[in-house]
């Protein structure tokens, strides 16, 4: 099956004001399968937006190539199947959301009437129907982001490329957005988005790519990563820390010990040992690992 996104040895560089070439992306390679939701993470200046711009054909790579559903990035064939949300959502200040979306709809290939109908439907999807006829310049940042999300959904694209998708949205807006995106995924849409909001990534993604200084430093399935980060915490009362017990542990209170096991097998083994030592089990808990800590650790390791 053709990959939704196929990036091979991508290199992007910019000319600085002094005239030097500054590398933004260094030999990046990855693939995204159709129907996947992939989060693109990295600190500021890691090259995320440059990669997304290369995928959209806004910047030309100095080496390597990007293909979307087999078509070269930036080609009309590729653009027909993509919805894109730019990092900073800016729309014509003197047009209304309905006019803005109708314009994009017409550029997408809809007739004027069909474009207006689609625009009205999408404004309802993103909860902006009441502000449909207000000028964009009077809308808040969050509302403009909703206009942006609506325009990216025009024409039911097969691939959504979203740059900082939750930027400017309040918690309710984020929840609604998650539902919209999940719904699109159920319909078979591929999602590729960059974000600083690790909680969004955690709730939405099948896979994450971590970028630093223009290079890919980590590529993981989110479920596998969660399994890796998950800790089983066993709290027991006993005379002392039992020798040879798996996992890391310490005494949290007087003769109460907390043991953190990384796998279920270790937990079972630890339970057996506690029982054999006549310890009293107080609590067993499964704790989710922090994606944020993992992200920071990964960046530090790479550095």
């Amino acid at each position, binding site marked *: 099956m053709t990959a939704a996104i196929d990036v091979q040895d991508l290199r992007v560089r910019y000319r600085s004001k002094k005239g030097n070439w500054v590398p933004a992306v260094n030999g990046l390679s990855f693939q995204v399968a159709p129907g996947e939701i992939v989060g693109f993470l990295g600190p500021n200046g890691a090259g995320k937006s440059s990669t997304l711009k290369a995928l959209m*054909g806004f910047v030309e790579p100095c080496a390597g190539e990007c293909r979307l559903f087999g078509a070269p990035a930036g080609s009309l064939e590729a653009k027909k199947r993509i919805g894109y949300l*730019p990092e900073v959502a800016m*729309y014509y200040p003197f047009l209304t959301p309905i006019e803005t979306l109708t*314009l994009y709809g017409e*550029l997408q290939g809809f007739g*004027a009437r069909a474009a207006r109908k689609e625009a009205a439907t999408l404004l309802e999807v993103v909860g902006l129907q009441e502000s449909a006829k207000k*000028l964009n310049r009077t809308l808040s940042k969050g509302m403009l982001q909703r206009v942006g999300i609506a325009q990216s959904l025009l024409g039911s694209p097969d691939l959504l490329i979203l740059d900082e998708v939750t930027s400017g949205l309040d918690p309710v807006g984020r929840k609604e957005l998650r539902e919209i995106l999940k719904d699109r995924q159920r319909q078979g849409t591929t999602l590729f988005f960059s974000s600083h909001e690790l909680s969004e990534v955690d709730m939405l993604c099948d896979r994450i790519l971590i970028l630093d200084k223009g290079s890919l430093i980590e590529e993981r399935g989110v479920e596998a990563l969660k399994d890796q980060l998950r800790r089983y915490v066993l709290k027991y009362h006993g005379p002392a820390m039992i020798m040879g017990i798996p996992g890391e542990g310490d005494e949290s209170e007087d003769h109460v010990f907390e043991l953190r096991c990384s796998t279920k097998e270790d937990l079972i083994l630890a339970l057996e040992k506690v029982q054999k030592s006549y310890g009293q089990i107080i609590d067993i808990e499964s704790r989710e690992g922090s994606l944020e800590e993992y992200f920071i650790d990964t960046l530090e390791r790479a550095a």
Partner: protein
Amino acid sequence: MKARVYKALAKAVVLESIRRKDLWVVAILGFLILVSSGALGLFGIGGLEIFVKDLAVSVLGLFSTILAVLIATRMMPEEIKQRTLYPLLARPITRLDLIIGKTLGAIAVSWIAFLLLAALTGLALAGFHVTFEPIMAQYLLAKMMGLVVICGLGVAFSTLMTPSAASTMCFVIVFGSTMISRALVMAYESCSPLLQWVFKLIDWALPQVSLFDLGGRAVYMHWSPVPMWVMGALALYMAVYFAGATGLSWLKFRRQPL
């Protein structure tokens, strides 16, 4: 399909321009024309018909040109500066489509402004029973063709330099092309053959916007309309320059990192 894209882009430009109150300049100018014509009326304009028409045509030509330059030269830089370019170019359109659509929008706005001004001027002059010869219609048509060349140039310059530099360049060429050509002709004889070729190239490349100004003929009475082949030649000249300017914009913009 392409026509739909150009129409959508141009419509957005016109809507923005109206709501941004760009055309208010036209309304204010129109008001001034009406007021000043009223003032002239106080003194009576018997025997001054040519003078009044000359003044009206000059004002009309000057302000529509200024407006066209200002609108066209800010079109593309504003798209880039405001970042409204990204969602546009994410659609299945090419960068050339965007340039053409935006330029057509600038042309439409400058035509609306020009025709509004012309209508208001006509209204003011009609109040004094000033008569219009059929050549007046040709004057309007030729001027509109001239505005196409100006808008094409404005957009092209704005992709090559900063908006203020583009406006200045555009004004120099639009108002000074005749003078520059005259200077080149005067210097031609005393130059080396190589320089003569350079002068010839500059002269050919310079758009002679004054060719589109039939104001002189329209002002003086009893001038018959210009032959249709002249209008056809002007249309061809306009098409060539519009294509050239658009091509220049595209060459600069087609691979520009955004």
